[in-house]
């Protein structure tokens, strides 16, 4: 089963753990709803769409309200350290959480005791703290955008806010930045870099570039990176090997975006409903190629 750990931008949202479904355009967990605008709700909504299409189990969410004070994240970390021992997840995604080195270490210690070890994906704030802690290699996948890739490539920056200017340049430098991130031990086993072109890479360099269909507007739309992470996590937890899932998910996310005929003013909630059709079309194309 897939587990997703993250936050909801509502300070009153309680700490909840449970299966996540979609109800009338919201995510629903333990009878409580959260709107899908961006962030962890968008990631979960994309994951639910994929598992529904594949006939798999709904993802398990660990959610709490946090608007940036870090209080919610801290309660969630505390709960996770105990609860993870009692669960057996195939894949865990850590997402919008307040970066905190101490809590990251405790979560890592709890995960190290799990057998078998789950596939670990870190995005957003938890990817920042994984790198900041020097523990990037403990993860199977990071899903940075180009700005975050520059941060991973900057061995001195503890947060993207401090990324040095010479690293924050054009997208065509992505292969150099990927190499630099691996050189300094600041990348996970695999990277899926989200951008105008999506790059799938490992320690040996770029393994695939996914740039079709090309919708320039997607870069401006908040949550399109979250949906990509949700799609790949759902595919991996459904048993697809990570490299194959990475390429499929990038293609599905792009195609779903394209089906929404986006402008920079489009909201991610307008794209998510197109994920099942995009997945079906990509899988159909793949089956035809294999025949």
């Amino acid at each position: 089963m897939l587990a997703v750990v993250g936050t909801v931008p509502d300070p009153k949202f309680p700490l909840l753990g449970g299966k996540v479904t979609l109800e009338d355009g919201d995510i629903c967990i333990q009878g409580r709803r959260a709107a899908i605008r961006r962030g962890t709700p968008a990631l979960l909504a994309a994951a639910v769409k994929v598992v529904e299409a594949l006939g798999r189990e709904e993802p398990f969410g660990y959610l709490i309200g946090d608007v940036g004070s870090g209080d919610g994240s801290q309660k969630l970390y505390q709960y996770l350290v105990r609860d993870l021992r009692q669960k057996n997840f195939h894949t865990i995604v850590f997402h919008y959480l307040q970066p905190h080195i101490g809590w990251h270490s405790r979560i890592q210690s709890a995960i190290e005791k799990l057998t078998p070890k789950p596939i670990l994906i870190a995005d957003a704030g938890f990817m920042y703290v994984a790198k900041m802690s020097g523990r990037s290699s403990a993860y199977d996948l990071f899903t940075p955008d180009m700005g975050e890739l520059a941060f991973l490539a900057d061995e001195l920056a503890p947060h993207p806010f401090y990324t040095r200017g010479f690293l924050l340049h054009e997208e065509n430098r992505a292969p150099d930045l990927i190499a630099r991130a691996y050189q300094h031990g600041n990348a996970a086993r695999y990277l899926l870099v989200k951008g105008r072109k999506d790059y799938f890479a490992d320690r040996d360099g770029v393994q695939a570039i996914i740039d079709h269909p090309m919708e320039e507007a997607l870069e401006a739309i908040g949550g399109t990176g979250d949906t990509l992470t949700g799609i790949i996590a759902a595919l991996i937890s459904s048993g697809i090997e990570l490299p194959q899932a990475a390429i499929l998910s990038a293609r599905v996310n792009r195609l779903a975006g394209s089906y929404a005929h986006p402008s920079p003013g489009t909201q991610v909630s307008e794209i998510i409903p197109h994920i099942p059709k995009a997945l079906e079309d990509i899988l159909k194309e793949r089956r035809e190629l294999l025949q």
Partner: protein
Amino acid sequence: MGTFGFLKKKSEDSAENHNGDRGFLVFENTSEVIQAENLLKKKGWEIRVMGPPPEIRTGCDLVIEFPLIEELKITKTLQEAGIPPLQTVPVSSPLLKPVDLFQIKDFGKYLMVQAANMKLTVDKESLTIVNISGGGCPDVPYLAEQMVGKVLSQAPSPLEIGHTLCGYALQLAYEEMKRRCLQS
């Protein structure tokens, strides 16, 4: 000078301090740093928000670099305002400098400004904020909910309602967008 006057070119050369005449103030959290920065700048002190040295870094941190000679007055001001620093420490090695580059993308009807990992997009005609993307700290989705759909001049400032370094990066993009769209 705007909130992010510390990013201006003239201060870049002094980003690394080796003279021992500067110190930094450490706070409980980034929200307190932002409040203290606003207060001290209003009172006219020459301060800068910077990244802490590794030995005191916990996660999403900022510190305030200040003239060490003013320590007593500054700590008294902060105590009176109810935001006393946890520590005051002399600067002994270079502090990290916040990002100071913007990437601009013109979509025709829309303009996107990126600062570090944060992107802000505005409809150029109506000056409405249509999207906020990027970032990883938990105030980003909250900031987006509060700002998207509002006109640039009426949207709340990320500095007022944000708490983290991503919120701070969004403030940079917001200031740059206002500079480009509202000052022509």
